[in-house]
C-alpha cells in the first residue's frame, strides 16, 4: 500500500481530532442527516429486512464460489471486448494502470470515486510518472485540492466545512474573478461543475471503481449521484475499471436485490441517481463510449480472508451505514483511523489488509453498542469481528503493558469468586466513603484516562452482586 498508514498512532490521532474545532463542527452534519434518512427509507419498504437476508445469502454464495465466478466474469467481459487484468497487490495494480496510460500517451486522467484507487495510492503513482489524475466526484475533488485522503467512504469530504471549501476554491481557481460570490453551496457546486467540465472533455483516460461486477454478463457497475462517474467513463478514449475481486455478483437479478439495500442504507435514497451497467468498449454503430475497456481485478489480501473468521467482511458493499451510526466515528472522524477505510468496517478490514501489528488499535475503537451490525445491509457481524481482532492483538502481545497487566489483575480476581466479592465490596465501601460529599470524582488513581474527560460517579451503596444476592434471597 502506498497511502502511508498512521493507524498505529490511533490514540494520538484521536486526541488531535477531539481538539479540532472545525472537524467537530463538520462532524455535526454526520450525526444528524444520515441516520434519520436511512431509517425513513428502510421504513418505507416493507421488504427491506427480507432483502437484507437475501443480499447476505447472495454474497455468501458468491464467496464460496469466488474462483468460478471470477473465471465466468472474465470470460464474459473478454467476449464483450474488454481486457481483464489481475493484480496480486497494490504495486501490481498501480503498474498495470500506469502501463495502459503510458501506452496511450495519456496526459490527464479523470477519476470517478474509487476506494480501491485510494487503497493502492494510485494518484501519487500517476503523478510521479508525469500523468495528472483529476478527481471528479465533488467530495474527492475537494480533498484532492487539500492534499487529504477521504474521511468517509461515500462522503469523502465530510470533515470539511463550507467556508473551508470556499477558501480552497479561491486558492486554486485563480483564473476566476476574485470578487465572485461563493457564499452558497450552490455557487461552489456550480464552480466545480464548470472547472471540471473542461477536464472531462479533454481527458485521455477515465478511471472508475466498480460497485459490482456481474458474472452473467461480464458487466461492471457504478452507482453515483453526481454523474461524474459516467462522464469519466464515456468521454475518454480509454476506460479503466479498478475493482477488488469480491465485487462479483452472479446475475442481473442478484445485483437488483443488493441495489435495493445499497442506497437506502447509504444516503437514505430509494435509488441513487445513476446506476450504470458497462459491458466492454464501444460497439459497432455506437456514436460514443470508450474505444478500450480494461478491468483491473485486485486481490491485495482478500483471497487470504476467505474461509477464515473475517470472511464475512468480504460481503461489505461500502455503503457507509456502519460509520454513519458509530458514536466513535462521530466523535473522531475518519482520518483518526489512519488509513483508507474508517469506522467499524475499517476497524475490521484494515487489520486484515495491512496487518494487526499496524492497525491493532482500531478494533479497540468501539463501545460495542452494536448499532453498526444492526444497520449493516449485508448483516456483517462487525462487533464480533472486532472482538476477534482484540483477542489476536492480545495473543500476539501487541496490547500495551498497562492493558495487559490490568487484564491480568482482573483475571486473577475473576477466577477467584470469593476474593472477587471481597475485593469489590471493599473497593465499593471505600469509594462510597471517599465520594460521599460530591457524589463524583474528578480524579481517581489509575483512572486518569477516564477522569481527564469526564467525572466518575461515586457508587451508591452496594455491589451488583451483593444486591442480586439480597433481592434473590428475599424471594
Amino acid at each position, binding site marked *: 500500500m502506498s497511502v502511508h498508514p498512521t493507524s498505529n498512532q490511533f490514540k494520538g490521532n484521536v486526541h488531535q481530532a477531539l481538539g479540532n474545532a472545525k472537524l467537530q463542527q463538520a462532524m455535526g452534519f454526520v450525526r444528524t442527516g444520515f441516520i434519520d434518512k436511512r431509517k425513513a427509507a428502510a421504513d418505507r419498504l416493507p421488504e427491506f429486512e427480507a432483502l437484507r437476508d437475501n443480499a447476505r445469502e447472495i454474497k455468501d454464495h458468491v464467496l464460496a464460489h469466488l474462483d468460478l465466478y471470477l473465471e465466468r466474469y472474465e470470460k464474459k467481459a473478454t467476449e464483450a471486448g474488454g481486457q481483464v487484468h489481475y493484480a496480486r497487490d497494490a504495486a501490481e495494480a498501480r503498474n498495470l494502470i500506469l502501463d495502459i496510460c503510458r501506452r496511450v500517451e495519456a496526459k490527464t486522467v479523470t477519476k470517478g470515486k474509487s476506494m480501491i484507487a485510494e487503497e493502492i495510492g494510485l494518484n501519487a503513482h500517476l503523478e510521479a510518472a508525469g500523468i495528472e489524475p483529476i478527481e471528479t466526484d465533488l467530495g474527492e475533488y475537494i480533498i484532492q485540492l487539500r492534499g487529504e485522503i477521504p474521511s468517509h467512504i461515500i462522503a469523502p469530504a465530510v470533515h470539511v466545512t463550507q467556508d473551508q471549501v470556499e477558501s480552497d476554491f479561491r486558492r486554486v481557481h485563480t483564473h476566476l474573478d476574485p470578487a465572485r460570490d461563493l457564499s452558497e453551496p450552490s455557487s461552489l457546486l456550480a464552480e466545480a461543475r464548470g472547472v471540471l467540465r473542461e477536464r472531462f472533455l479533454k481527458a485521455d483516460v477515465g478511471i472508475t471503481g466498480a460497485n459490482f461486477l456481474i458474472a452473467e454478463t461480464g458487466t461492471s457497475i457504478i452507482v453515483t449521484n453526481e454523474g461524474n462517474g459516467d462522464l469519466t467513463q464515456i468521454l475518454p478514449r480509454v476506460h479503466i475499471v479498478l475493482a477488488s475481486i469480491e465485487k462479483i455478483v452472479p446475475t442481473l437479478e442478484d445485483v437488483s436485490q443488493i441495489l435495493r439495500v445499497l442506497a437506502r442504507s447509504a444516503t437514505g435514497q430509494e435509488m441513487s441517481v445513476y446506476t450504470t451497467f458497462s459491458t466492454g468498449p464501444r460497439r459497432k454503430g455506437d456514436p460514443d*463510449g470508450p474505444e478500450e475497456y480494461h478491468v483491473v481485478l485486485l486481490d491485495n489480501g482478500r483471497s487470504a480472508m476467505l474461509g477464515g473468521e473475517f470472511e464475512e467482511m468480504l460481503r461489505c458493499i461500502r455503503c457507509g451505514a456502519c460509520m454513519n451510526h458509530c458514536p466513535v466515528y462521530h466523535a473522531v472522524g475518519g482520518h483518526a483511523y489512519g488509513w483508507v477505510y474508517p469506522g467499524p468496517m475499517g476497524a475490521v478490514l484494515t487489520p486484515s489488509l495491512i496487518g494487526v501489528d499496524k492497525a491493532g488499535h482500531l478494533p479497540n475503537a468501539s463501545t460495542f453498542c452494536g448499532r453498526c451490525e444492526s444497520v449493516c445491509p449485508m448483516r456483517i457481524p462487525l462487533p464480533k469481528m472486532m472482538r476477534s481482532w482484540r483477542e489476536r492483538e492480545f495473543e500476539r502481545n501487541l496490547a500495551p503493558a498497562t492493558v495487559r497487566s490490568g487484564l491480568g489483575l482482573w483475571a486473577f480476581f475473576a477466577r477467584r469468586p470469593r476474593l472477587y466479592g471481597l475485593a469489590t465490596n471493599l473497593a465499593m465501601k471505600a469509594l462510597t466513603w471517599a465520594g460521599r460529599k460530591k457524589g463524583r470524582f474528578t480524579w481517581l488513581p489509575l483512572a486518569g484516562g477516564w477522569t481527564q474527560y469526564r467525572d466518575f460517579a461515586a457508587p451508591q451503596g452496594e455491589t451488583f452482586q451483593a444486591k442480586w444476592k439480597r433481592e434473590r434471597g428475599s424471594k
Partner: protein
Amino acid sequence: MTARADILANIRRSLGVAASERMRVQAVEDRIERSPRGVIPARGQVDPVARRDLFKAQAEGVQATVEVVANAKDVPEAVARYLRERNLPATARIGADPVLVAMPWEDTAIEVAHGKSEGRDLNAVSRAVAGVAETGTLVLHSGGDNPTTLNFLPDNHIVVLKAGEIVGDYESVWSKLRMTFGKGELPRTVNFITGPSRSADIEQKLQLGAHGPRNLHIVIVEK
C-alpha cells in the same frame, strides 16, 4: 506463476476446494442459468394505471418533473412548451431513435440537432426503453438511437417514455432486455436514471445539478 493463476489458487486454498469439483461448477452454472428472482417489492406489482401513477409520484419525489401526453405526436409541442416556460432556447439534440425522429418537430420552433453530444448542448431529448415504477427510474441504453452522452452532458434532459413500457420492478427490465439482446448479453451501457444529478458533498446539503443534468423532465406518452 501469473497473477491470475496465483489469485485463483489462493482463493481455492483458502476455501479448501479444487477447481474441478462438479457440484460447485454445477451450482454456479445453475444460478446463472436460472437467474432466480429474489424479493420483489409489492409496491410495483399493480395494474398498468396504478403503475404509471406510482412511477410519476416516485420520479417527482426525486425532483424530476413529469408530464403525461396522449399521443406521440403531442411530444414536440410539450417539449417546446417546457423550454419556453423555463426561458430556455428552443434547441434540442436528439439521437436517431425512430420513435423520436418520426415526431412532428417541424411544427414547433425547436431547432433539432442529431448525433452524440460534444458538451455544448443545453437540451437533449432521449427515449427510455423502460420506466421502473418502484423507484421512478428510467432505463436507457447505448447505441446510435440514443447516444449515452445525451444522458449526461446537457443541462436539461428530456426523456420520452411510453406508458406501456413502465414496469413494476428492475427484474422486469432484465427480462425485457434479454428479449432484445439475449440471455447473458447487454449493450455497452445501460443507464438507470433516478432524478436529476445531485451532490450533498458540502456539509450534507443537497444541491441539484452536480455534473449531470440540472433538470430531468419526463414526458409519458399514453398511447
